């Protein structure tokens, strides 16, 4: 593989146009909009956009460009225009001249309207952004001619339908500024065999040595159009032998793979056909890459994790991760989830730091060819898809 696609600013500019202004981008879950009038803003620097996602009085979730139609002020923000905000409101009022917009995007009030002489308010509603929902995940697309979301997500997503995502509303979210190209972090999470090496000290010594001696193999790989999936086994949840895990895990019955005891909800048995696509008995986790920048990890013990990689330049991005659990009923359940969340952070810090080192070295340009093995097929696919999208866009 050649990493020119991750270090060249001109290539990044093409990705901004060809990929991020024309692909479906996930901006979160419907649970973030619990009521009519609930909204959040999302800064999407890579598409030079700020959007408002809002549930209208009719219960419909819509997205709009976050700009007042009067003089172009950013419409929804507090104190710092670049910080994302959320809340609930009856209408949006511009800070500048108090133009008001309904939660459905209509212009409803103009200060000193008569001085605009026959202003047709119907023509100055908020500018909409395509917004569609799949299984509670809200996606937007800046291309009005883009194919419908379900067609874009294709059969890989179809196979996950029915998974009880909506039951898992206990959320832990993290954010990090990462000094690497956005694709490099996806690369890091698109194969699992780095884990016994990079994260060697997180397992007990015997387990780590055993893994390194025979090498780690994932269970299943598949490419679906621009998207892809890799499944891994997960012998630690619960472990076959309690001596395989650390003391705190033995106490709390939890760890990297999550709490060992399955939550008591519908929809986990049987699982939708796309979950554990290889049908492996020792299945532990599926990691789905939805092109371009959204990853979904479904863990055997009944919880899920999302990653988003929002580019801010050719060599930087904002990384977001959220863990979703079924709300715990007891302190014991809650502490098990706490351990899973804390463990996640310990791993992610190691992964994140490795990336900056990679970005610096590939940018030096002294070495330009890098061999990938078979387990790294999702990486090749991501970089190839990204390049193909640019070609497709330029040829259109």
């Amino acid at each position: 593989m050649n990493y020119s696609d991750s270090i060249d600013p001109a290539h990044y500019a093409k990705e901004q146009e060809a990929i991020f202004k024309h692909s479906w981008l996930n901006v979160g879950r419907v649970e973030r909009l619990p009521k009519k009038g609930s909204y959040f803003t999302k800064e999407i620097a890579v598409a030079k956009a700020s959007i408002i996602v809002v549930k209208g009085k009719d219960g419909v979730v819509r997205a709009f460009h976050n700009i007042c139609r009067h003089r172009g002020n950013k419409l929804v923000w507090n104190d710092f225009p670049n910080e994302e905000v959320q809340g609930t409101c009856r209408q949006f009022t511009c800070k500048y001249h108090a133009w008001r917009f309904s939660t459905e995007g209509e212009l409803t009030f103009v200060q000193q309207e008569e001085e605009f002489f026959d202003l047709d308010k119907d023509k100055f509603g908020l500018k909409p952004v395509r917004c569609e929902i799949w299984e509670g995940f809200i996606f937007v697309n800046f291309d009005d001619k883009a194919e419908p979301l379900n067609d874009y997500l294709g059969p890989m997503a179809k196979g996950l339908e029915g998974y009880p995502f909506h039951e898992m509303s206990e959320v832990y979210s993290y954010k990090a500024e990462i000094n690497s190209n956005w694709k490099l972090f996806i690369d890091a999470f698109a194969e699992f065999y780095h884990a016994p090496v990079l994260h060697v000290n997180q397992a007990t010594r015997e387990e780590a040595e055993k893994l390194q001696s025979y090498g780690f193999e994932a269970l299943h790989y598949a490419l679906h159009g621009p998207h892809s999936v890799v499944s891994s086994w997960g012998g630690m949840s619960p472990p076959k032998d309690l001596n395989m895990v650390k003391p705190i895990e033995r106490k709390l019955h939890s760890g990297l793979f999550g709490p060992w005891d399955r939550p008591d909800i519908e929809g986990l048995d049987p699982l939708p056909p796309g979950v554990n696509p290889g049908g492996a008995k020792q299945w532990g986790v599926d990691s789905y890459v939805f092109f371009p920048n959204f990853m979904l990890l479904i863990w055997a013990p009944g919880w899920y994790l999302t990653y988003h990689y929002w580019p801010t330049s050719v060599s930087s991005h904002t990384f977001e991760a959220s863990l979703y659990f079924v709300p715990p009923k007891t302190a014991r359940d809650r502490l098990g989830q706490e351990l899973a969340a804390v463990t996640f952070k310990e791993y992610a810090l190691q992964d994140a730091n490795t990336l900056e080192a990679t970005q610096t070295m590939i940018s030096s340009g002294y070495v330009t060819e890098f061999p990938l093995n078979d387990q790294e097929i999702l990486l090749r696919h991501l970089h190839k898809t990204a390049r193909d999208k640019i070609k497709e866009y330029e040829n259109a």
Partner: protein
Amino acid sequence: MPDTATKTGTLPAEFADLEKFSDWCLATEPERYGKRLNSTMAQMQEFYDAGMARIDEAMDYLDQFPLKAMPEDAKALMHLMQSLVTVSFPIECWKQPRVPDSGAAWLTITKEPVV
């Protein structure tokens, strides 16, 4: 006259032995993680040893209450147990407060369920 100013601890009376670690009764992740980074391994080892010895009883005690309606002293015990999870990594894995090889990397929690 009876002494009405009996000093009450932060934690439930059954866990008075853990009272000396009550500065670890921290409700949020940034506070717990920050205290971990600012503690010595010896301090955390002492807390870890004492906490792990009582964690089973602590969970039995806490499970009497609904998670969303815990009395204040039980809540403090819950926060102490959450800190125990936070220090378990330095003690059980890293032998240092920071995650090794994490350099300048920093992860901010932006949403967490606070007990």
